[in-house]
């Protein structure tokens, strides 16, 4: 490994291509931590946005008018405002209103940090789209298929669990993949409220090393790798859930 790092040092010395994250231990650590933060933030947002989408789509089918109205308002609010503005809103407007606590060193520190607010804000943003995606999936399940299940004596809960949901999930998968990819890319906005994710640490490194061009390129390829791995996983899931011959 050491020879690889040394090669990057040589690349910098002889050709002026400065990829300090490979030969400088401190930069390497910073970059890796940034990458991990991006992954952690992405996973948190993916999971909670799926949960929000699921619960929202369910509430939208509800008998209660107020539940449907609330979900509708939620979607309008989060779909029709820029995610950066939402981040600022949560971090500064909501976070700023909450009480502060004295930490170990006696400094006043906020109840929730920037990572928390980024996770909340981006989950709600992604979740709003997921609700619509799941709703479209549920509406695509043929009424006749549900009737067949009813006539076999399945209860409402069983119909949802065994027939409607598995079909709706399959119908939603394509659109869901797009939204999930978008959500992972949108985590880079967390930079704006100081979450030490990939873009944030890269900016720190290029400020220190003045290697903006190299870091920009590395950053771009890091996202290509990250999103590529995710898309690969999603396609495997799509294949696993395939319904042979359906719709042909």
């Amino acid at each position, binding site marked *: 490994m050491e020879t690889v790092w040394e090669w990057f040092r040589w690349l910098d010395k002889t050709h002026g291509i400065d990829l300090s994250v490979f030969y400088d231990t401190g930069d390497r650590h910073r970059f890796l931590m940034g990458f991990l933060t991006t992954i952690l933030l992405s996973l948190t947002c993916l999971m909670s946005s799926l949960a929000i989408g699921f619960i929202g789509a369910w509430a939208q089918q509800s008998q209660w008018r107020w539940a449907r109205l609330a979900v509708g308002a939620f979607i309008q609010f989060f779909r029709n405002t820029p995610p950066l503005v939402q981040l600022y809103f949560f971090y500064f407007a909501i976070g700023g209103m909450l009480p502060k606590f004295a930490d170990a060193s006696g400094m006043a520190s906020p109840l929730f940090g920037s990572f928390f607010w980024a996770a909340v804000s981006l989950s709600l943003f992604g979740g709003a789209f997921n609700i619509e995606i799941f709703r479209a999936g549920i509406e695509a399940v*043929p009424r*006749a*298929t549900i*009737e*067949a*299940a*009813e*006539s*076999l*004596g*399945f*209860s409402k809960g*069983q119909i949802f669990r*065994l*027939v409607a949901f*598995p*079909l709706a999930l*399959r119908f939603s998968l394509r659109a869901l993949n797009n939204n999930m990819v978008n959500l992972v890319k949108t985590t880079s906005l967390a930079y704006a409220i100081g979450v030490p994710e990939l873009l944030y640490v890269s900016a720190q490194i290029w400020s220190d090393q003045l290697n903006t061009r190299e870091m920009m390129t590395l950053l771009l390829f890091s996202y290509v790798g990250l999103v590529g791995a995710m898309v690969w996983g999603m396609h495997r899931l799509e294949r696993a*859930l395939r*319904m*042979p*011959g*359906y*719709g*042909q």
Partner: protein
Amino acid sequence: MTWTADQPIVKIFDVHKSFGKTEVLKGVSMDVAAGEVVCIIGPSGSGKSTLLRCINALAVIDQGSVQVEGQEVHDPDLDQLALRRKVGMVFQQYNLFPHKTALQNVMMAPLHVLGEKRGDVEARARELMRKVRLAGKENHYPGELSGGQQQRVAIARSLAMRPDIMLFDEVTAALDPETVKEVLVTIRDLALEGMTCILVTHEMGFAREVADHVYFTDHGVIVEHGPPEILFSQPQDPRTKEFLSHVL
């Protein structure tokens, strides 16, 4: 009042049903004895399918009474799931679960609705697949089967619940002429075994061959009914004559 096998297994009396302002059933009465095969024929839009769907409560009647084995189907206190376990239904569009294999389609309801053991259910499902002449197709998905094969899976799926009564709603209407026969043969076998069958059908030859009793409906009323040899050869009502002259 307890029901005994010498009383009609299905007793329909003065049933009225409207969709919005259109009255589709205008006082229909019909008795079906256990083991009997009854065909309902008539022009489209005459309320045949709706009548069938009233028997397993897929459609709710506005007035009158439908009794299955002495139990009032539209009694709010009735255990609707229990009713549907007794009454199997096969649809024009098969309505199989596209994300499950043929065998899984047949096994689902006994497993989840009746809570039977997997081993028993699987043995019975394989036996039923043989019975509908689909041995070897167990692991095919519905999308990989022809219409006639899908329809026979749907029949097996219904039979797996060991119903007392089978309802067939224009089950050959979506099939190619050459596959119609394979489905009709399956139904005829069932009828010969003594299953109570109520069919809505356009297959006059089939009705004539297997039915014990034929009902001719038009504009929401039963115009005429009787044994097929009489109804088909000596229709009394001008509407029956007119209809039969078009289809025979």
